[in-house]
C-alpha cells in the first residue's frame, strides 16, 4: 500500500501547487474534516477531496487553481513514471481518459489538517481537527516525523504547535506553502517556507481501496431546487440540534404552507422550523415540482453544519430517489476570487422505519387547531 516517504530517485513532479496562505485551504478542508480518511483526486482543473461515511453520506471539496498562486499538474509525468507500477490503469485510459488522467489516492485527512494547523493556518482553534481526528493518527504521525529534516528541528516543535504565536505576529511574512505530489506511491509533501525556515511534511498516500463513486444523484428526476442563505439553514439546524434528535425530516411543498420545513424529534420535545418561500432575503430560488418529504439521519446532516457556518449560500436539491444534495458556496478570502463549492449528498432513511412520532412533528404546520386531527391520528398508532 504505502511506500517509503523518502523518494530516492525523485521523478518529476506530477503535481505542484503554491499558496501564500494555507488558511482558506484549511478552512475548506475542515468542513469535511469529520472523517479521518479522504480520497484525493488531482486533475488539471482542480484538486478534489472527498470523504464518505457509512456509504450513506458523502462530502466533496474542490480546490480550484484560483486558490493557489501557482498550480501545475502534468499528467504526462504520471504516465512515464507510474504505468509500470500500475499496469491495468493504462488499458482503461482510453475509455475514461478524463477520469483516469487524474491522480487518485487516499490520504489521512486528519493528518493533513494537523499539518496545515502546524503551519499556523488555524489561529483561533488549536483543539485539533475535531471529530475524527484521533481515530487515525498513525498516518499522520509518520508524516509529521518528516519535520526532522527541518534545520531547527524539534526545538521549534512546541512553538509551531502553539498557534497563538502565529497570531501574535500578525505581520505574517508571506511564507509560501507548497504541495507536491510525485506520483503513485509517493507521499504528498507539504513544504512551508517562511523566512528561511523550511518545514516539510510528508503525508503517506494510500491506493484507493475501491471505486469510491459518488452517491448517484439523478438530475433528470429532480424534485426541487432551493437556493437560500446558508446562515438560515444553519440556524434552523442548530435549533433542531438542541433536541439531539435521531432523524431530520425535510419537507418541501410547492403550494402548501409552509413551503420548506425542517423538523426533528428528540426525547423531550420536537421542533419544526418553517421557512417561507416568499422572503427573498432568505430564499433566492424556490423551484419545487412536487412535494418532497425525506428523512435523513441527523448525525450525518450535523456533519455538514460546519460548512453551513462558513458558506454564504446553499443549494438544496432532491431527486426522485430521495437523495438530498447540498451544495455550499463558500466565498474564499480574496474578493473577486471564484467561490469554492462544498458538496454534500445524503441517502434517505428507509420509509419502513418506525418514526410515526416524527410524522406528527413533521405534519404539524401551525397552532390554529384546525389541522390537528391528522397528526393526532398518527400519534395514536
Amino acid at each position, binding site marked *: 500500500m504505502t511506500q517509503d516517504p523518502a523518494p530516492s530517485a525523485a521523478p518529476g513532479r506530477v503535481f505542484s501547487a503554491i499558496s501564500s496562505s494555507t488558511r482558506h485551504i484549511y478552512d475548506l478542508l475542515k468542513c469535511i474534516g469529520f472523517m479521518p480518511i479522504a480520497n484525493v483526486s488531482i486533475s488539471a482543473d482542480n484538486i478534489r477531496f472527498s470523504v464518505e461515511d457509512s456509504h450513506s453520506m458523502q462530502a466533496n471539496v474542490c480546490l480550484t487553481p484560483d486558490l493557489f498562486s501557482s498550480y501545475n499538474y502534468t499528467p504526462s509525468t504520471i504516465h512515464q513514471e507510474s504505468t509500470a507500477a500500475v499496469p491495468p490503469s493504462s488499458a482503461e485510459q482510453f475509455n475514461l481518459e478524463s477520469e483516469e488522467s487524474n491522480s487518485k489516492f487516499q490520504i489521512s485527512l486528519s493528518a493533513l489538517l494537523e499539518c496545515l494547523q502546524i503551519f499556523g493556518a488555524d489561529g483561533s482553534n488549536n483543539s485539533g481537527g475535531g471529530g475524527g481526528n484521533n481515530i487515525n493518527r498513525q498516518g499522520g504521525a509518520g508524516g509529521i516525523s518528516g519535520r526532522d529534516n527541518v534545520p531547527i528541528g524539534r526545538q521549534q516543535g512546541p512553538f509551531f504547535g502553539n498557534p497563538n504565536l502565529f497570531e501574535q505576529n500578525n505581520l505574517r511574512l508571506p511564507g509560501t506553502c507548497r504541495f507536491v505530489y510525485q506520483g503513485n506511491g509517493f507521499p504528498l509533501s507539504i513544504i512551508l517556507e517562511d523566512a528561511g525556515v523550511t518545514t516539510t511534511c510528508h503525508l503517506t498516500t494510500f491506493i484507493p481501496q475501491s471505486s469510491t463513486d459518488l452517491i448517484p444523484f439523478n438530475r433528470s428526476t429532480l424534485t426541487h431546487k432551493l437556493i437560500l*442563505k446558508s*446562515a*438560515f439553514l*444553519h*440556524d*434552523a439546524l442548530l*435549533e433542531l440540534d*438542541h*433536541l439531539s434528535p435521531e432523524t431530520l425530516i425535510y419537507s418541501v411543498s410547492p403550494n402548501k404552507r*409552509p413551503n420548506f420545513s425542517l423538523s426533528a424529534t*428528540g426525547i*423531550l*420535545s*420536537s*421542533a*419544526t*422550523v*418553517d*421557512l*417561507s418561500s*416568499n*422572503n427573498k*432575503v*432568505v430564499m433566492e430560488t424556490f423551484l419545487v415540482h412536487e412535494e418532497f418529504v425525506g428523512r435523513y439521519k441527523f448525525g450525518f446532516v450535523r456533519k455538514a453544519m460546519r460548512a453551513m457556518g462558513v458558506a454564504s449560500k446553499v443549494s438544496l436539491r432532491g431527486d426522485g430517489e430521495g437523495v438530498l444534495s447540498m451544495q455550499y458556496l463558500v466565498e474564499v478570502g480574496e474578493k473577486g476570487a471564484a467561490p469554492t463549492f462544498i458538496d454534500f449528498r445524503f441517502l434517505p432513511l428507509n420509509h419502513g422505519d418506525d418514526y410515526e412520532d416524527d410524522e*406528527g*412533528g413533521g405534519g*404539524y404546520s401551525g*397552532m390554529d387547531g384546525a389541522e*390537528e386531527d391528522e*397528526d*393526532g391520528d398518527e*400519534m*395514536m398508532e
Partner: protein
Amino acid sequence: MSTLQITLNPLAVDRLHEALTCLSKFGDSVTLEARRNKLNLRTLNPTHSAHILICLAGDTFCDSYNFVPDPTKLSFGSNGGSQVSQRSEEGAFKCKMNVKALLPVFRGRYVQEPINKERDENVVGGIDRCEIVLQEKPNKGQCRLVVKLVCRQGITKTFRLQYEEADIIHASFLKEWGVNKWAIRATELKKWMEHFGPKTEHLEIAADDEERVNFTSYTLKVIDGAHILKTPLQTSIELDLIEFNEFQVARDTSIAVSVKDFKSIVTHAGTFEHVQIQAVYGEPGQPMQITYDQNGMFCEFTLMTRKKGAAGPVGKAEPVAKIMSHRSAVPGSGTGSVARTREPSVVSRTSVTPTVPPTASAQPVVATKDASRPESVPVEMPPPPLRVTPRGGSVSAVPNSKDSPALVSGTRQSSLSTGLRGSLQPRQSQSLFIMDEDDDVFGPSPAPAGDEQFEALLDDLDGEDVLGWDASLGSERVSFVELQERAVNADKGKAVAGKEKEQREGRVEESGSYVEATQRKNVVKGLFDD
C-alpha cells in the same frame, strides 16, 4: 381542556430565559402553573432545601395572556363546596417539564441589533414574538406545550414540548418567621458575590453589631473516619448598614444558607435593573425568604437555613461551633423540625412594618427550644383534638380552623426527610414544602375585582395561620393530624392505631365535615412513601 395562550415580546422571552437559567441552577424540572392572570414557574431542589417561585404576571409581563380553566375540573372542584375547593379549584393548569428542554427554546431570542453589519440582512436569530399555546388532548395521547417563535424573515420555529402532570409543591413560610428583614439593591449585593469562592458551601449572614452585617462564606467538610477536616477558605465581607435600604434584624442573629443558592439568586436579581432584594428570615433552622420583582416578574426564593447546632455528621460539629460560636451542638436535633405551611401573602411582601400578630411573635422562640430537644419525635404527636403543630405551631390556628371546618389543615411531616438524616445536611430534614394547589402569590398586577376579594380572603386565612394541603384537587382531603400520624408511623414503624382512632374521633367531633378519612390517608401515604 384548559386553554392557555401567551404572547411574549422578545425582551420578555429573554427575561424568561434568565429566569429559567436561574431555576435550572436549583433543579432539573420546572413546574408550570397557569392561572387566570399569571403563570407560575416553580422549582424545588433535589434536597428540598430550596424552593423557587417565579411568577409572571399575565398583563404586565406578557403581551397577551389568556387562560381558560378546564371546565370539567372546575365542576369537579365545586362538588366540595368549601372554601378550599373554591380557591384551589380555580382550575389551574399544572404541569412539569424538564428545564433543559425549555432552555434552548428561549435562549438568545432577543437580538438587539445586527451582529455583523455586512450581513445585516442575514441576521439570524432574534424573534418578533413568541406564542405559547397549550395543546391538551389527553384522550388522543398528545399533550404538548407548543412554543411558536415568529422570527424575522418569515421563519417560524415551533417547539412542541412534552410535559407531565404535576402537583404543586409549595414552600411553607410563616409570617411569624419573618422577624428579621433587610432589603438591598441587587447590584450592590452582586458586586460582592464573586468574592465567595466557588468551593465554599455555606454563607453565614450575621448582624453582630448595629453598624454592619457580616457575610461569611465557609466550607464545612468533614471526611468521616480519616480525621481530615477541611475548612479551606473563609471569606468575610462586611457591609455597612448604609448600603441597605431597610434593615431590621434582631441582635446577634446569624443564619447560614448555601452559597451556591444565594449566588444564583443574586446573579439572577442582578440581571434586572434597579431591583431591590428583600430578605426575610427568623431563627436559624427556619427558612429564609428572598423576594424581588420587576416588570411583571415576581421571584420568591425560600431557602432553608442551617439549624442551630446542626453540623453535619454527629460529633463533627466543631468547625461550625468555632465559626458560629453561639450554636449549641445538639446531635439529632434535625429530626425535630416541624413544617408549617402558610400561603405567602401580599402583606408579607408589601408592608415594611412587621405584620406579625402578637401571639406569633413569641412562637419562634418556642420553636427553637423545641427543636433543640433531643427526643423530639414523641413531641410531634399532637394532642388529638388540637390541630396544632407541637413546635412553632401557632395556637391561634385552632379556633380558626374550627370556624372554617372545611379548611383542612395539613402539613407535610418529615417522614421522608428523617430517613435522610445523617447523610445529608441537617437543614434538609425540615420539610419545608407542602403540596398545595393554592398559591395565591401576589400577582404584581392588580387582579380583577373578584380576585382581590379572593386574595383578601386568603390573607385573612393567612393571618389565622391556616394550614392547607390538598393532594388531589380538593376531591380528597387529608387532615393535618393524619398526616402527622403517617409521618410518625413511617418513622417509627409503630402502629399507633389507637391514637389514630382517637385523633380521628376527636377531629370528627370537632368538625363534622371530615369523611372517608381512611381512604384519603392511603393516598397520602403513597405520596410520602415515595
